[in-house]
Structure formats: structure tokens, C-alpha cells
């Protein structure tokens, strides 16, 4: 199962890969990474039907913000689940995300155990 992580920080790739090392090896998890909202949409749009089932996206990114990406992606690929991750746990961002159809809202620093539970839940469905 493919999960897309969107963040403008490059090291997020290594971090997620290492954090979900066991899930990747044992539960068939596949992680893909995009470093901007636009790149995320490109990846989602390049596969037909989309293989990515779940997207975790940062909100604050230069250029297209995570929230913009969320509303576009939800419009084009309503079946894909998208959760937002934000450094700022403000209600405005939270409300916007939820209105645009986000499944969850995580604040930084990311609680990897909560994230792991969420991912394992999807993987074992």
C-alpha cells in the first residue's frame, strides 16, 4: 500500500523511512515523498488509477500550501484519504482542513506513535 508524504523539508524522507522501517519490511508499506504541493498533485495525477491511498501533508510550504493542495486533491481524487500536519495548531487551519475534507489533523512535532497507529489501522484493514 502506498502512502504519500508531502513536506518541504528534505530530511522528512529519511525520517519517515526509518520510523516506518518495520512496517515497510513486514506489512508491505510503501512510502513516496513530495516536497511541494504541486509535486504531490503531479504524483497523484501520474497514476491511473491512483496507487496512493493515503496522503500526509504539511501545511506551511512555499508556493502551494498544504491546504490548497488538499482541496484540489480532494476534488480530483475524492477516494484518497488526506491528513494534515501543521506546525501551528491554530483552529483556523484546523477548520479549513476539516472543511476541505481532511481525515485527520496532526500537529508538529509529529507524534509518530499516533501516526503509526493510524497507518497500521489502514494497512491491516
Amino acid at each position, binding site marked *: 500500500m502506498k502512502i504519500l508524504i508531502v513536506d518541504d523539508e528534505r*530530511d522528512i524522507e*529519511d*525520517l519517515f523511512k526509518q520510523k516506518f522501517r518495520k512496517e515497510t519490511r513486514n506489512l508491505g508499506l510503501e512510502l513516496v515523498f513530495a516536497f511541494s504541493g504541486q509535486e504531490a498533485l503531479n504524483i497523484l495525477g501520474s497514476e491511473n488509477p491512483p496507487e496512493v491511498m493515503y496522503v500526509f501533508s504539511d501545511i*506551511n510550504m512555499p*508556493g502551494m500550501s498544504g491546504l490548497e493542495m488538499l482541496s484540489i486533491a480532494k476534488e480530483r481524487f475524492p477516494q484518497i484519504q488526506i491528513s494534515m500536519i501543521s506546525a501551528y495548531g491554530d483552529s483556523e487551519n484546523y477548520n479549513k482542513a476539516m472543511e476541505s475534507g481532511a481525515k485527520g489533523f496532526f500537529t*508538529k*512535532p509529529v507524534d509518530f506513535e499516533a501516526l503509526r497507529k493510524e497507518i497500521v489501522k489502514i494497512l491491516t484493514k
Partner: protein
Amino acid sequence: MILVNIISFFLLYYLKKFFGGENFSPELKKYFKFGMLGAGILALAGITKIPPKLLFDFLSLALAGGIIFLIINSPELEEQKNLAVTPLPILVVQVVKFILETFLPSYYEVIDKYLAAAGFFAIIWAVTMWLNHRKEMKAIQIERMISKEKERQLFLAQERKEELERLVRARTSEIQNQKEELLQALNHLKSTQEQLVQQEKLASLGQLTAGIAHEIKNPLNFINNFAELSEDFLKEIQEEVQKENGQMDRENLQDLLEDVKSNLKKIRHHGHRADNIVKSMLMHSRGEKGEIKNTDLNALIREYTNLAFHGMRANPNPINVEIALDLDESLKPILLNAEDFSRVILNLTKNAFDAMRDKINGVSSDYKAKLEIRTKELEDKVLLEIEDNGPGVPEEIKDKLLMPFFTTKKGTDGTGLGLSITHDIVKSHGGSLEIQSKVGEFTRFRILLPNSAT
């Protein structure tokens, strides 16, 4: 002999009238009084012929001689000494006449005529001398008057000069006071200006605080996560190593070791990153001036554009904006005061964000805010352009934009110092700042810096 007395009287009278008064000592006045009295009495006695002729003649001559002696020996009559000579020939003739008459009457009769002639000439000579003396005296008087007038004028001039000097002194001290007051006002203005500049610095720091917090949080999260992961991996490695020979998964061990190694590298990288952010924050909060040194302009732009972006995002009314950096990678480090120049980047990016926010709030939704930052190495200059596709600047306020305290922002949004300080900083680097704009399309700040790359 009556003539001698008249001359004596006249001599004294003349001297007293024209030169007497204050100049004369009381003693001299007394001599004059008795002299005149004596001459008068003798003249009367001569007319009435009461005393014997011999005594009368002798007294008359003695008095005249005494008067001449007095004139010559009185310091008060120094200038009138010539006058004493005037009647001298008359006196001599009279003396001779007196002696001859008294002692040699036979001779007297022989030279009587000659004596009469001599007496006549003596009178003419006396009159001439006297007239001369009068003339001289008049000349002296005129001279005196002139010198008196001169003295008066000099005195007046002196007085006037003193008056002027007094005025000048008064005016000078007035001006001095005013100068002091102005100096005080200037110092006050200077310190106010410094305070304002400091406030503006703090305001831009405040703007950045959220961005900086966000920026620090990111590397710290990475540090925590990679450290935690490395701990887990080391535990795993320990477990793996403790396994029986043959059961050990060498490949897994190798992977884990690689990960730990790369994680430590990342921890160091992110630690360094956080350190830099704190350093630049301290740099901003301190009032002191940074130093001019070789600086990588592109790196400075990346760092501060990022901070400005996150600062903007973390503050009220964040906007979505695409940031396009088109940096000339061949650009070598140039001489910059990094602390000052970072404020140029912060101010201009903040300015762009504010402008574009206004446009977002004003126009239809298909507007996409975009900030472009370019660097380019020219022959002897370095070009830095910061361009936004915001509402643009109308021609009529373009010139005012760089003036202190000019602001289009309402209320407490702007100090009106940001762009003015930006301009000052650019100028202090020997650079120039130009604003190009088209209303409704773009605003471009074009900065040319001397290319000091060595």
C-alpha cells in the same frame, strides 16, 4: 614813562583775559592783580605828576621788568614767552633814556632825537611782534579747537564702538544660546532617531519571532527524532551482535549502522542549522552594528526569505505565496554587513507580502501571489531584484516610498521606516535602489551593489 605803565597794564590784562582763569595758580593771579593795580596807580600818578619824576620812572621800569621776569619764569605762561619780548625794546629805550636823563643829562640832549627815533621803532616793533603773537595765538587756538573737536569725535567714535561691541556681545551670547538650544534639539532628534531605528529593528524581530520559532522547531524535531531512532537502531544492533554466529543478519546490521551514521550526520546538520538561526536572531536583537565581511549573498537571501515567509505565515493574516528564487550560482561572496543587509531582504519581502495581501483581499480569486528574487553578477556590480506581482505603486507616490515615515499602511501596521532604512542600508554599502512598477501588475526593487568579489 606813562606808556610803559600802559604797556605793563595792557600786557597783564591781555594775558589774563585770553589765557587766565583755570590755568593760573592763585599765586600767579595775585601777582597779576597787584601788577595791574600797580600799573594803574603808576599811570595815574604819571598823569597827575604827583610823585617825583625820578621815582616814578624807576618804579615804572621796575614794574615792567618784574612783569617780563614773571612772564618768562611762569610755567603757566610757557606759550606766551614771546610776548615778554614784545615790549623789551621799548623798555630798553626807556631804560637808556632814564639812565641818561638821570646821570648824564648833557649826553641826553645830544642823543634825545636818536632815542625818540629808537622809541618809535621800538613801538612799531612791539606792535608788529604783538600782532604776530596774536596771529600765532589764533592759529594755536584754531589748532586747539580742531584737536578738541577731533578728541570729541574720537570720544564719540569710542563710545559708539563700545556700544556696538556691547550689542555684538549681547547678540553673540544670544546666538550662542540659540546654538546650544539647537544642539540640544539635534541631539534629542538623534537619540529619537536611534530609538526609532532600534524600534523598527525590534518590530522586524517581532515579526520574525514566530518564523524563527518555527524555524528552530524544525531542526530540533529532526534532532530529537534522529537521536531517538539512532538509539533504537543501536539497541537493535546490540541484539543482533549478541545472536549466535550464523544467525546474525549481516545485511541488516550493515543497514542499521549506515542509518546510525547518517543520522548522526543529520543531527549535526540540524544542530548547526538551529545554531545559525539563534545566532542570526541574536544578531537582530542586539543594537550593535555588524561587521562588513565576505558574505554569500545567495545564502543570505535563502535564509532570510525563508524566515520572512514563515514569519508571515505565523503572523495574523497569512497568505499563500509562491516564492521563486532565481539566484546566480556563479556569484562569489561579496563584502556585506550581513546583519544590516539581512534587514534589506526582510523588509523588502515583508513589503511584498503586505502588498500582495492587499491585492488578494481586493481582487478576484484567480490571483496567485508570486514573489521572485533574482541575483545576477554583472561586470562590476551585483544585481538583486525583489519583485512581487502585487498591486504596484502609483507613479505619484513612488518617490515618496523611500522617505522616512511615509507609509500607506493604516493604523499601527507600519512604522514608515522600513523602506527608508532599507534604502539607507543599501546606500551604506555603496549601492543604489531603484523602484520599478506597473500599477496592477508588479513592483520591482532593483538593487545594484558593488561587486567586491575577489
